[in-house]
Every structure is written in C-alpha cells, then in structure tokens.
C-alpha cells in the first residue's frame, strides 16, 4: 500500500523537483497539494505552478488548494525570487494548465482530507508552515487525524541559509513553525543538516536532461537559474532540499537520524527562526522530532534519476 500524502508547498524549483519525485514513486500516493507563500509571495502563481507540474507529469487528478499569502504574525520579506526566479520556476514557462485550484482554502482542505481518512494521511511540508499552523488553530485535533508529518525545514546543527542559524522555511514563519513543533505529533525533519549533503551538479543534471522525456528536460531547465544562484553564493553545486523530505518517505533506509526535542526561536535578534535541538534534555520535554542527519548521496541521486525516467 502506498503511503497517502498531502504535499504543502510553495513551488519553487526544488519543490517542483520534489513533486515530480512523488508523482513518479509508487511508494506514495499524492492525495492533494496545498499551496503557501514562500518562494514567491504570489500564491496564485504558485498554485498555477502546482497545477502545471501535475499536468507535466500527466497526473491531473490531485486537487490543488490555495493557502496563506503571509506569515501568521509577520510580514513576508519576498526574498524567494533571488533563488527561484520571478515565476519561482527559474523563469521557465510551462503551458497554461487546464486544471484550476479548488474552491476551498488550504487549511480547510488539509483538515477535510485528513478527517476523511483518519490516521492515514501523511503531511509533507516543503514550504513555510503557515497553512499547517492555520489548520492547527482551526482543528487542534489535527495531530490525531494525520499519520505523521514529514518536513523540509530547519537546521539543528548545520549553518542556516537566511541568517547564521535559521533555514528559510522556518524563518519565513517562525510562529507557525513553533505551533507545528509543539502540536503533539512526531515530526521527521529534513533540514539543512541533511539537505546540504546532497550535491547535484550540472554533469548529473545533464544526465537527467538526456533522459529524453519532458520531465527530464524540465528539471534541467528550471535548475539553470537555481544552480546559478548557488554559484553566486559560493557553492559549487546545488542542494535539492525538498526532495529529501519525499525521499525520506520513499527510501527511509537512505537516511540516518537522531530523535530530539526541537523548538523554534521566535524572539531572538540574531537567531530568529532557529530550530534548537535540546540534546541534553534541558527543557524536560520528550523528543518529538527525528532530525535527519545523514544520507547516502549516491543512492539518492541514482533513484532520483530512475524515477524521473518513468515520467512522460
């Protein structure tokens, strides 16, 4: 039985790569996509990206719901385009999708989907945690309705990517992240501790382009702007953050993890959005987060290649 997943995302170059991996993998069944601001502040654009990615993969069945345009408390800073380009897909125009978002906001869509199949749906979050935070405010029982939550976000021991210690998804809405980490569910966290260990360079991406299918060409095209941003920032290759969250479901044996209580800094001057691991049990709280700390980079990239090859 495939694991039934609902993807909350701000697509986004690496989100698009992760959604393709999910759609190409028999281990998971995508029940729907909820969209949140993040890599762009224009959620309608991001929802259109989600619909277009589904069509590209030939999978138009999954509903797409539009969600939050702003963090719970703060203003959106709008810095996503530096890495993802103006349309969040590295400037690559996909054909206008026939599929339209559903007429239900993301928070309610998440609750409806989980309530319809209690204990069966896994939430996979690839963006700021605002939609999940809103859903938790509407339905505090949500943790009992879902199977588990797998997140791309945070950095417990690794350096941050928006300040010295914070990762962008958590930093984009620290209050929502704080709600999510303290909601009473177990979390698998694919943060920068593990995502920065996957290195995709142009040589590897060219092998995906040369698969000869439109998904492979799309992956090549959208990563042009994205990998250039990494080069500008001083990296030799690019990380594929969001695909780690999916791969952790598809192939958990590729990963190592540590179980620890994690909380979110919301008031620090230098540390806003930091995910703090309580390694020495100083908060007296039970661990709730499986922090992914290691990954088999070679096996990861081999399977990613094989899965993209199965798409149209």
């Amino acid at each position: 039985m495939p694991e039934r997943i609902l993807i909350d995302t701000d697509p986004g170059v690496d989100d698009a790569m992760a959604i393709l991996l999910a759609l190409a993998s028999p281990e998971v069944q995508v029940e729907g996509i909820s969209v949140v601001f993040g890599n762009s502040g224009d959620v309608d654009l991001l929802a259109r990206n989600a619909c277009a990615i589904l069509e590209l993969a030939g999978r138009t069945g999954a509903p797409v719901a539009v969600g939050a345009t702003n963090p719970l408390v703060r203003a959106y800073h709008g810095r996503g385009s530096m890495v993802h380009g103006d349309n969040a897909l590295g400037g690559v125009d996909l054909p206008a999708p026939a599929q339209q978002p559903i007429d239900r906001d993301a928070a309610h869509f998440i609750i409806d989907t989980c309530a319809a199949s209690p204990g069966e749906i896994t939430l996979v979050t690839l963006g700021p945690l605002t939609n999940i935070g809103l859903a938790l405010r509407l339905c505090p029982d949500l943790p009992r309705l879902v199977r588990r939550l797998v997140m791309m976000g945070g950095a417990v021991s690794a350096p941050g990517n928006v300040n010295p210690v914070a990762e962008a998804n958590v930093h984009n809405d620290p209050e929502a992240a704080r709600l999510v980490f303290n909601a009473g569910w177990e979390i698998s966290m694919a943060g920068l501790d593990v995502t920065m260990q996957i290195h995709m360079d142009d040589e590897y991406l060219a092998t995906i382009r040369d698969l000869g299918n439109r998904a492979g060409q799309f992956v090549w095209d959208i990563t042009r702007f994205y990998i250039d941003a990494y080069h500008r920032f001083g990296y030799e290759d690019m990380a594929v953050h969001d695909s780690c969250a999916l791969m952790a479901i598809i192939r958990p044996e590729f990963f190592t993890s540590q179980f620890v209580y994690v909380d979110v800094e919301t008031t620090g001057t230098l540390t806003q959005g930091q995910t703090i691991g309580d390694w020495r049990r100083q908060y007296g709280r039970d661990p709730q987060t499986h922090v992914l700390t290691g990954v088999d980079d070679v096996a990861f990239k081999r399977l990613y290649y094989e899965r993209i090859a199965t798409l149209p």
Partner: protein
Amino acid sequence: MGDWTLANLQSPYLQSLFSNLQSLIPPMPPLPVFIDCDTGVDDALALLLAARSPELDILGVSCVAGNVPLDAVVSNTLTVLDAAQRPEIPVAAGYAAPLVQAFENASHVHGEDGLGLPDWPRSSRRPDSHHAVDMLADILDAAAEPVTVIALAPLTNLAGFVQRHHALLPRIGRIVSMGGSVFSGGNMTAAAEFNIGCDPEAAAVVYNSGAPITLYGLDVFRQVTLTEEEVTSLERAGQPWSPLLGGLLHYLQRRFDQAEPGLGDGGAVAATILPGALETHAHRVDIELTGTHTRGMTVVDRRVASKDASHAATPNADVAFAIDARRCARLFVETLR
C-alpha cells in the same frame, strides 16, 4: 657496523649526544599570559597546568563571579596557586555579578565550595588590593610585549576592562576564551554555554571590542579527557600539588560518573601552550542578547554564502572546530606528574 636498534638509541652515549643537541636549540621564551577565572574545579586544573608550565609567564590572575560566588572564587584561586607553589603570582578580585543580568552560579556542577572539596584547607592569603580590571590594566601598561589573556570564566572582567581601559586593548595579543559553542548546543540552556550565558552582555562587549579572540567552545572543551591510568599517575606523583589534583580529578569522576575525567578549562590552557593543537577557522561571531531559547548563544556565521555579506566578511574570532585532545592531555600529565 652494529645494528641500528633501539638498544643503540638508548645507549648513554647517544642519550647525552641528543640532550647536547637539544640544548643547542634555544628555548622559546615563555608566553606572557594573564588568566581570568572563576575557580571552579576545571579552572583549578587549568591554573595548576599554567602555574607549572615553563612555557607560560603568568603575569596575573583575576577572579570573577561565575561557577561560584566571587569570595569563593578568590579563595579557591589562592588555594590552588599555593598548592602549585606559585604564591608570588598576583591575584585580584573583579566583579561579583554580571554586567546586566542577575548572577546565577554553577555550584550544582562544582559543589557549593567550587572545588568539590569542602574540607580542603583554604589559603590564608588575601588578594591584591586592586580591582581585577585595574590590575590587568597596570600589567598591560607595563608589559614589554602583547599579553595573551586566557579567559576561563564569564567575560564580565574583560568587558569591564574594554569599557574602562579601551586604550590598552592593543596590548592584548589575543584572548583565548573558553566559552560558547558552535554546533554542540549549550550546557546552561539548550543553546547557551555557561560562561557566555552567565553574562551575555559582557561577552558581546568583548566580541565587539576588536581584540583577536580564539573561541574555545564546548565543541572542543568536552574532548580533552584523562585515562584512568593518567589520573592514578598524577595522584601518586608525589608533587606538592598531587593531593589537590587527585582530589579534583576524583571529584570529577564521581560528579559525572565517568572514569575518564574531562580537563575542561585545562584543555584551553594546554591548547594555548601547544602550537597547532587547535584547528580554527575565522568567522564572525556575535552574541545573542534576546531570544526565548537562544539568549547567551554564540552565533557563529558558518555560511558559505555569507562571504559576500559585509558583516560576516569581517571575522572577529578564530573558532576552534577540532583539537588534538590526546596531545593536550599528555601535556597536562607530563607537566604535573
């Protein structure tokens, strides 16, 4: 021609030849240092090592509230220097409380007395009549060359020095600061190490002072440990300080329920003496002063991308990421045996 074997190497003739050759290499002049401490079990280990190290010229020792209240710190410091047969080293008392926040000690780690040895007879000596900050200023003013400050405590005294004697700051060659953490979390809170968390504002003053700093944090602090055999050899060495040293090490073994006690601050002194013992990288380090979870955290900017950002492009500390822990432990044993 005889075999070139260990037996030859151990022959009295060759041994005297080697020692004659060694005597031709001029000894390094001792490094002038000033030690700021909150003695403290592991501060005591650090003081013993420093006081018995020919590689160091200890110009003075200042005391600050930290592991235990100031009076106990002063008394412990004098007691340890007595045991080390170095009563001539000037000792001064500094601040009794942090710059801004209320004082919170660490007697749960070091015992109410600070050495874990409440029955150990304390020194009858008194400290210098000057405040620690002024003693440091006088010493720097008189020093012929830059002085290395080994800071093993909350940075309250050094912040006071920066605030009151800023013109003398260039006389400090380097501050080796045991404090903070890069990726190991904290020991006072989940994010803050004790020496920084005890007085975050003072740490911020020091890190913003422009003085060259080596950050010796929990990442390396916890790695320097002694074997059980080394503990035994130190305890039985028959030196004037051996009974005190044995008592301190046994307290650590009991307190942390581990046969191989960590040297703590002692490792920072060893790493100051041994060139190349630390692997350091230059980074911008700032102190988080607010934060629900992170107040008192050393925020080390390790981002590759931050090379371009102007603030991060001005590193203010050499941050220790790795240590030759065995080499440091061996130096400790060889010096105090």
